[in-house]
C-alpha cells in the first residue's frame, strides 16, 4: 500500500507540475502576437489594415498615414471625419444621410468561448407589445422540457394556465418537445422585443413571442438536413434580420425579419469551435472577419449579401515561434483547467508537437539512471520510476524526487 500511495502522490504531483510549470514558462517567455485589424473600404474597394499602433496599410501593402486610413473608412470613423470636417458628402454616388448611416451600422461578435459554454435553462419572455416606452422584466421565467413551464420568480410556483396556453400553441404548430436550443436577447437593453428562436428536438426552427399575453408561434421553413448549432439574435436598427445562425456545417445564415427567409452568406472557413467571428455592417458593406489562432480571413459582402472581396493573412502561433519550439523540446505536454476556446473547466491536455521532447525525456532517463548507478540502488526497484520519467519527462523527474522511493530499495 505504501508503494501505491507513493505512485498516487507522484501522479498528483505530475498533474500539478504539468499545470503550473508550463504556465510559469509562458508567463516568462510568451511574446504578444499582434493580430491585424481589417475593415473593407467603400472608397478604395479594398481592405484596409491596421497592424499596430503606428502602421496602417491597404491590402496591397502600401503604407498610409492614420488620416488617410480613416478617410478610406468613413463608415468606421464617421465621428472622427465629422470632427475634422473631412467626411465626404457622398460616396459612390450615394449622398450620406446621417440617419441612414446610423440605421445601417451594426456590429456582431461571437467569441469562440461563447459557443462551448454553460447555457441557462430558464429565460424571461418579454411582453412584445406592452405599450410601455421601456421593456420590463417579466415576473416569470420559462423553460422547455416536455412542455413549456412558466415559473413565477416571486413564489417559485409554476403558472399552470400560462404554461398550458404556450405549450398548446407550440404543440399545434408542430413543435417537438423538448427544445435543443433557445436563443434570444434576455435583456431590457434592446430597442424592442422579438422573443426567442427555438430549435426543437427534430431540428425544426420556431419563433416564439408573447403579444398582449398571448403566444405568437411561427414555424420557420428550413431546407431538409439543415440544422443549427448556434443562433445569435440581434437587435439592429435597420430591422433587416432577426439573427445570425451557424449551421452544423459551419455555414452562416441570416433569418430575415417578418418574412422569415433563411439566407446563406457566401462565407467559408468558419469553425465556431476554433474561430472568433466579427461582423461589421454599414451602408455599403458587411465585413465578416473570421479570426483563428493562426490566421484571419476577411470577407466583404455587398448589401444584398454577395461576396465582393476577401483577404487572408496568417502568422506563426506561439507554438511555432522559437519559445514554442523550446517548450515542445522540454515539456511532453501541457495541462490546463481552462481554455481560450471554452468557458467550461476541464482537464485540457495538449501534447507537445514533434518528438524533441522524447529526446529530452531520454536524456533525463539517462541522468536518472546514472544517479541510481552512483547511489548503487537496486535497479529492479526503479523500473516503474524510470517508466514515469520516460513518459512524463521533466514533470516525472521532479515528482519521483519529491516523493522518493529510497525506503523501497
Amino acid at each position: 500500500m505504501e508503494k501505491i500511495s507513493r505512485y498516487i502522490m507522484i501522479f498528483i504531483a505530475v498533474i500539478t507540475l504539468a499545470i503550473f510549470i508550463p504556465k510559469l514558462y509562458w508567463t516568462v517567455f510568451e511574446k504578444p502576437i499582434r493580430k491585424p485589424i481589417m475593415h473593407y473600404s467603400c472608397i478604395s474597394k479594398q481592405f484596409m489594415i491596421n497592424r499596430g499602433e503606428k502602421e496602417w496599410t491597404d491590402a496591397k501593402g502600401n503604407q498610409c498615414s492614420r488620416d488617410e486610413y480613416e478617410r478610406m473608412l468613413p463608415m468606421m470613423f464617421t465621428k472622427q471625419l465629422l470632427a475634422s470636417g473631412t467626411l465626404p458628402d457622398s460616396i459612390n454616388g450615394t449622398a450620406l444621410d446621417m440617419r441612414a448611416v446610423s440605421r445601417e451600422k451594426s456590429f456582431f461578435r461571437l467569441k469562440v468561448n461563447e459557443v462551448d459554454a454553460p447555457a441557462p435553462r430558464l429565460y424571461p419572455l418579454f411582453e412584445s407589445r406592452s405599450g410601455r416606452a421601456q421593456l420590463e422584466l417579466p415576473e416569470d421565467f420559462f423553460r422547455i422540457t416536455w412542455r413549456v413551464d412558466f415559473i413565477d420568480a416571486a413564489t417559485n410556483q409554476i403558472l399552470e394556465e400560462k404554461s398550458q396556453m404556450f405549450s398548446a400553441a407550440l404543440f399545434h404548430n408542430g413543435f417537438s418537445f423538448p427544445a435543443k436550443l433557445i436563443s434570444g436577447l434576455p435583456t431590457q437593453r434592446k430597442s424592442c422585443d422579438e422573443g426567442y428562436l427555438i430549435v426543437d428536438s427534430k431540428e425544426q426552427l420556431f419563433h416564439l413571442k408573447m403579444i398582449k399575453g398571448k403566444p405568437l408561434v411561427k414555424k420557420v421553413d428550413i431546407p431538409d438536413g439543415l440544422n443549427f448549432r448556434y443562433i445569435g439574435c440581434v437587435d439592429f436598427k435597420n430591422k433587416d434580420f432577426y439573427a445570425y445562425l451557424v449551421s452544423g456545417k459551419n455555414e452562416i445564415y441570416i433569418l430575415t425579419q417578418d418574412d422569415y427567409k433563411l439566407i446563406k452568406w457566401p462565407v467559408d472557413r468558419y469553425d465556431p469551435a476554433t474561430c472568433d467571428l466579427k461582423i461589421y455592417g454599414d451602408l455599403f458593406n458587411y465585413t465578416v472577419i473570421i479570426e483563428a489562432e493562426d490566421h484571419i480571413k476577411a470577407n466583404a459582402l455587398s448589401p444584398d449579401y454577395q461576396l465582393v472581396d476577401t483577404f487572408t493573412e496568417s502568422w506563426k502561433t506561439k507554438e511555432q515561434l522559437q519559445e514554442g519550439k523550446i517548450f515542445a523540446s522540454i515539456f511532453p505536454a501541457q495541462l490546463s483547467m481552462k481554455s481560450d476556446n471554452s468557458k467550461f473547466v476541464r482537464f485540457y491536455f495538449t501534447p507537445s508537437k514533434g518528438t524533441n521532447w522524447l529526446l529530452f525525456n531520454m536524456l533525463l532517463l539517462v541522468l536518472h539512471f546514472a544517479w541510481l548507478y552512483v547511489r548503487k540502488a537496486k535497479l529492479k526497484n526503479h523500473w516503474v520510476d524510470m517508466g514515469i520519467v520516460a513518459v512524463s519527462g521533466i514533470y516525472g523527474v521532479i515528482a519521483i524526487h519529491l516523493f522518493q522511493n529510497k525506503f523501497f530499495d
Partner: protein
Amino acid sequence: MWESVFYKEWLKIRWFIVGYTLLGILCIGYLFLTLKHNFAFTGGKNVWNTMLFQGHQFYSLFKYVPLAGGLVIAITQYLPETINKRLKLTFHLPLAENNGLLLMQAFGAGSLLIAFLIFGGLFTGFSLIYFPIEIVADAIITILPWLLAGFAAYFMAALVVLEPNRVFRFLYSLVGGCFLTIYFASAGTAAYGPANSGLFVLTVLLSIAVVFSAYRFRKGEM
C-alpha cells in the same frame, strides 16, 4: 478495536468538528437570510435574472468554507500525533500497520462528510424554496468542487503534518497548495460540470496519501 480508534479520534476533534459544523450552518443561514432580504428588496425576478444572465452566485461566501474544514480537522487530528512522536503508539496497536492510520483517516473524512452532507442538505433544501431545479442543479455543480477541495485539503494536510522531514514538509505543502487551486479556477456558474468527475477520482485517490508520510515516519526519516 476500530471503536477505540474512533473514540480516540472523536476526543481529539469533537469540539472542532462540532464548532466547524455550527459555523458552516451559520454561514449557510446567513446566505439565505441575505437572499431573503434581496428577494424582498429587489424582487425575485431580478435575483433570478442576475443569477441566470449576469453570473451572480449568492453562495460565493461559502467557497472556502469546506477547504477551511479540511485543514482544521487534519491539523487537530494529526498535529497531536507528531508531538513526542505519539503516532508510534498507533503502529503498536494490534492492527496491521496501516490499518490504524487508515481508521483515523476514515474517521476524519467521515466526520467531514457528515458536516458537508448537512451543509449540502440545508443548501439544497433552502435553495429549492427560492429557485427551480435548473438553478439549484447549476449551483450544486458549482459548489461540488469546493466540497471536494475540503476532502483534498484534509488528505493533503494529513500528508504534510505527518511528514517527518521539514524540507519535504515544505515541498509537499507547495505541491498541495498548487494542486488545490485546480478546484478553485475562476469560472462561471456550472462551468465545472465536465471536470467534477475527474476531480472526484483525484480526491478519492488522495485518500491514501497519508500512508506515504506514515511509512517515512515509521522508517525514521528525519
